[in-house]
């Protein structure tokens, strides 16, 4: 039997029983669609989370006060752990002498009231140095980022997010104006252009001040973190070693701080979300197998319904192999077109979701399409085998007289 004859015959049966065909197409396409949608959610979640870190630059090493013993030197996620001895600006200064360090940005965070011209609002504050701009890879909309602010010097300057600018200054020019923060004053030197979040804070609502101004504001000398930018990835490990040595010495021989590499954190997040995506995909794949079993059941019924046809085909010279091929082809056509339908549906729905929820990125991974297509075809073949075998093994006489 020729290939196109096989396809024609299989198609003619599928068309002959439209309800059955549609039912099986729907079952398979739902399976494939589920794989696409769930993996899109998984990938989207990964993208969302890692996006928080991605813009920070990959050559970043971060020192956090406190040691998470249970993590065994790995990357502690619990940043709110107790702080036996605080990190100080002096600690940050001591890291300067390490080779390969490009930038050091101490970070202090807090919240205070900001006032201008009788208007007042509560704002989140980040205290740091000029280096922070380069470390965070931020863009300025206008002005300069904390000019003259270093680890040793904290002139009374500040930069503000767009929303702060709008709310406190309105139409008037913010640059050069004196902003009151708590009981201090600072001159606005720039507006931050970047949108998004930094350490969980919406950048547009933020005011950034020199580090000592922040510690004075909050009356607390300790740093939230120290971010160190390495010149390149390769020196990272050496820098970490040196940092640990220096800080340990400064902290009376105790390693009461944690050093993590930004790229390591990102990699572990990546891993977690890859596993999540895979798990979601596997769960969805189960529905593909359910569809396969459905195909098998319906085909088994079809075999007994079509006994007399099978008998006739044998009487006019069909070999067992050909009967087998015919049923397998039907199963593959069903699962294959169901899969294609599911791919189209899955990707269309993803597009709709993207438009409806623009903040969350739905990203169906490429492999999900391939894998679900292959899985659907495989389940078609596997679950088509039994009915096809049963059909081909029918005795021609029994088949012919079985039903008319």
């Amino acid at each position, binding site marked *: 039997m*020729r290939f196109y004859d096989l396809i024609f015959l299989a198609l003619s*049966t599928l068309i002959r029983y439209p309800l059955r065909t549609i039912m099986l197409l729907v079952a398979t396409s739902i399976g494939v669609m589920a794989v696409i949608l769930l993996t899109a959610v998984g990938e989207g979640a990964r993208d969302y989370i890692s996006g928080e870190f991605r813009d920070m630059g990959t050559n970043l090493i971060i020192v956090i006060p406190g040691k998470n013993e249970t993590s065994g030197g790995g990357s502690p996620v619990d940043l709110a752990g107790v702080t036996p001895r605080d990190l100080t600006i002096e600690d940050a200064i001591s890291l300067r002498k390490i080779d390969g360090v490009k930038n050091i940005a101490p970070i202090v965070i807090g919240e205070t009231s900001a006032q201008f011209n009788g208007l007042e609002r509560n704002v989140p504050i980040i205290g740091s140095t000029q280096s922070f701009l380069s470390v965070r890879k931020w863009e300025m909309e206008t002005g300069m980022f904390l000019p003259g602010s270093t680890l040793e010097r904290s002139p009374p300057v500040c930069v503000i997010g767009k929303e702060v600018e709008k709310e406190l200054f309105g139409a008037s020019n913010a640059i050069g104006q004196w902003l009151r923060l708590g009981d201090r004053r600072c001159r606005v030197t720039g507006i931050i252009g970047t949108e998004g979040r930094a350490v969980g804070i919406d950048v547009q609502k933020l005011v950034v001040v020199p580090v000592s101004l922040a510690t004075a504001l909050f009356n607390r000398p300790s740093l939230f973190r120290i971010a160190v930018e390495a010149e390149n990835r390769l020196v990272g490990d050496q820098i970490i070693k040196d940092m640990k040595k220096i800080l340990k010495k400064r902290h009376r021989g105790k390693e009461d701080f944690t050093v993590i590499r930004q790229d390591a954190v990102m990699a572990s997040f990546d891993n977690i979300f890859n596993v999540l995506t895979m798990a979601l995909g596997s769960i969805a794949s189960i529905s593909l197998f359910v569809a396969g079993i459905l195909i098998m059941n319906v085909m088994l019924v079809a075999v007994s319904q079509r006994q007399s046809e099978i*008998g006739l*085909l044998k*009487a*006019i010279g069909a070999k067992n*192999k050909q009967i087998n091929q015919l049923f397998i082809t039907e199963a593959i056509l069903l699962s294959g077109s169901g899969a294609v339908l599911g791919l189209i549906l899955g990707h269309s729905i993803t597009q709709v979701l993207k438009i409806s929820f623009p903040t969350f990125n739905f990203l169906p991974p490429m492999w999900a399409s391939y894998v679900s297509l292959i899985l659907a075809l495989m389940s078609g073949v596997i679950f088509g085998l039994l009915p096809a075998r049963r059909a081909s093994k029918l005795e021609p*006489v029994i088949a012919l007289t079985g039903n008319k």
Partner: protein
Amino acid sequence: MIRIENLSRKFEVGNQIVRALDHIDLEITKGEYLSIMGVSGSGKSTLLNILGLLDTPTKGDYILSGINTSEMNDDEMAHIRSTKIGFVFQSFHLIPRLTAAENIEMPMVLAGIKPKDRQEKVEIALSHVSLNDRSDHKPEQLSGGQRQRVAIARSIVMEPDVLLADEPTGNLDSTSGIEIVRLIEDLNKAGLTLIVVTHDRKLGNRSDRLIRLLDGKIIDDDRK
């Protein structure tokens, strides 16, 4: 051409044994026109099915063109059915979703013949049964007699040596019945060996040779 020696076919239903064919000897020469008659349940269909390699005997030998069929495997039997044997059934057995032409084409499709060669042969077969104008009709759009003519066209399209017909007129009125009979008799005159199972005495009497079965045994073998 066909030789049957000491052939039996038993069916076991529960603990009961039915001897559908009971030690039969039969020889059929090429080009012969043979009728098989007998009461219901006497084993006519069983004999015809065995002759057509749709069924296998439980005992004895069936030698077709010098080859003992008991030594054939499934594929070899399928090949013989495809090339040497044509079937016509009482209930036509057309595939309902295919047109008349496609039904006739089916044996050639299974044999892997090229579409171009198939088309030509379908045309010839259709003109044999005078249905050229009905080639695109589905079976449900044809009368019983026309359906049987399509079935006959299908049975001869591979140019077999033997045509086996199990009560080919059983589902037809007498006018279309006689049409069908004439059709297959013409094929016989052109050299095709014709074996017809029938209940119809008149039809049986038209053949060169008439055998009667009773309880799976040949009780009569008349040559004219």
